[in-house]
């Protein structure tokens, strides 16, 4: 018999809440508990963090249940330490306010924490979901309005799916070269 919140749904919520702590977004629907709702526009979750984490290529998938359960275990200890009254309706990490989620993630990813590698890896993949959308083809992601790439202003490719920038230079010398530059163009 699984412990409380050790279900697929609860684990998904917990990992979404972790991803939303790394790069937050807006709530997907009224009463969306996983998302803290502290940022306008989508964040790591809307960018595909769970898809990236679950991808066979990334290598995180086999560890996700353990990480979600561990995250909630740490959240239980955190609320006990802080005297916070958890909301029993949702997993312990999800029940935390955004500032407390941040403090706990800072503690987990601190180099002094022997477990930090796992929590940093989780944060890395959440970030990659946002800044690269690595679970999906980049051209297709852009066409579908991938939230992270759109937020960053990543430019669209040419019609063949390749990037070319015909206009790319200010076109003039903008600094004096070092006086000791050698004829090969290297430092002396």
């Amino acid at each position, binding site marked *: 018999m699984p412990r409380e919140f050790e279900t697929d749904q609860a684990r998904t919520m917990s990992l979404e809440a972790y991803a939303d702590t790394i790069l937050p977004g807006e709530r997907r629907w009224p009463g969306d508990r996983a998302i803290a709702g502290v940022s306008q526009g989508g964040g790591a979750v809307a960018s595909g963090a769970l898809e990236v984490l679950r991808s*066979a*290529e990334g290598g995180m998938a086999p560890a996700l249940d353990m990480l979600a359960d561990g995250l909630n275990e740490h959240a239980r200890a955190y609320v006990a330490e802080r005297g916070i009254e958890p909301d029993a309706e949702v997993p312990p990490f999800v029940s935390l306010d*955004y500032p407390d989620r941040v403090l706990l993630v800072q503690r987990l990813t601190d180099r002094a924490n022997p477990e930090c590698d796992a929590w940093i890896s989780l944060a890395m993949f959440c970030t990659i979901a946002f800044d690269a959308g690595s679970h999906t083809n980049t*051209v297709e992601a852009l066409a579908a309005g991938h939230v992270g790439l759109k937020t*960053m202003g990543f430019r669209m490719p040419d019609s063949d799916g390749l990037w070319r920038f015909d206009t790319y230079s200010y076109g003039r010398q*903008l600094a004096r*070269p070092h006086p000791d530059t050698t004829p090969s163009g*290297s430092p002396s």
Partner: protein
Amino acid sequence: MTSSENTDVLVIGSGFGGAIAAYHLAAGGARVVVLERGPWLSGEDFQHDFKFGSSSTRIFDFVIGDGMSVLSGNCVGGGSVVYFAAMPRAPRFVFDRKGRFNRRMWPAAVSRDTLEPWYDRVAEALPVTQTAWDTVPFAGGLFGAACDHAGRTANAVPAAVDTAKCTNCNWMMSGCRFDAKRSLLLNYLPAALAHGAQIRPLHEVQHLSRTDDGGYRVHYTVLDDVDYRVEVGGGTIDAKIVVLAAGAGATPVILQRSEPTLGAMPHAVGRYFSGNGERLNTAIFDEDRIRDVLGLSRPDGVPYEAYQIGKGPCVATWDKLDGSLPEYERFSLEQLYFPPGFGTILAQVPDAVGPTWFGAEKKELLRRWQSWLTVFTMSEDDNEGVFGAPPSSGNSMRLSQQMLGRGSLRYEPTENTLRGWALSDAEVRDILERDGLARVMPWTNDVVGAYTVHPLASCRIGDDPATSALDDRHELRDHPGIFVTDGSAVPAGLTVNPAMTIAALAERAVPGIVEAARARGVDVRYGAPAPDGATSSRAAVLPLVSGALRR
């Protein structure tokens, strides 16, 4: 007894160190086999795609260590396929560096002057050309203008890029789709193949042992072409000469793993690793100040918003490459692009109230991504990296199907290294924060430690057997017939991009390898022209290498 293939020369790795040796030895008449742990991609295989499994993850190796993470090539062509092709020669003072033992680290035989003819060979072969300012992308122009505004000089950096073919797509870390980047896939490697060399991709060398005739047996596994964690085969090849060029993050690991079969390794194998003193700062520019202070404007009237556009680093300031400054206080600063997918996580939020590398404020920083500029410090670190016990295979415990692994490198920056980084951080701020142009923060070292794209010195040349693994001919001490020609042979940080120096050292090492092969009965001679047949640089080195010329 199992049968083993045999060849004259077995080359491990196909980056600069391996490809250059393979070409000259094959052209000189030796039978050459190159084993490369990564896949063999070219031209249209190089994708503009961040998706896992595309070329961007297939051809890279990102190994997280304890205090230092190393990014390196993992494909036929090695670092030349993923690098940014900046090819400056190392400044003169670098060769006189003394380091923490207060003793010249480079062999007496190597200086900027003695290396020049070998630099010339590389420049002719790739080729390397000077970058014209009218081909410098916006980001390089912005950095140059900011340097000039702050009273600094700035140079357009020599590069191995054919600007006529370049589209300034900035996907060059995924391999160049347009064959504009002059990687080894376009010169040394096809020339080596034309002379009969064999290149075998996805062959990962694990260790070496000895053969009865004084040669070496090279033990490899064959990796699955999608999931590099999976071994699909293996074998051995016997060779009279082994050229080890697996990269500074892998060469010492192969040698460490070979100790039970080869005997004790020189003390310096797996020690004195240098991250080339690398450090990154991210500047977030105020677009209005770019226009008002620097007077810059793109043709469409936007001042900048062009971080994505370009061809890697094009402009550097060399004012601190001053040999009269104390060691550890000399560095270059180079404008750089770092693509998404590891390229944003370590950037920190200036003036953050909360966490600096993640969180709500970090997301706000990412909204301004097109106004970012990354500045790359290459400084003099203290060779403080040490490799721990080797993993069971490869050079890391692979975590993902491709790219990501956990390695045994431990790096605790000394006060010297930290001082250089602090000085360079202050210099970047002084240049880029002047008159409100930008806000600047260094990348955090608290997530994956420090970070290098130019690993060096883990199996270095030198005159002192106590602190160098190789003699000045690149031969592994106490293990004759094994030569190391990759970045691990470079004794210390170079304060500039090292590919040109790694390649020049490999060119310089070849005549000695030819002589060693001849002594072992291989019918080979030195004297091949550049891969395209050009001969002007050859003429300058032939008088230096008469011993390797005889039939």
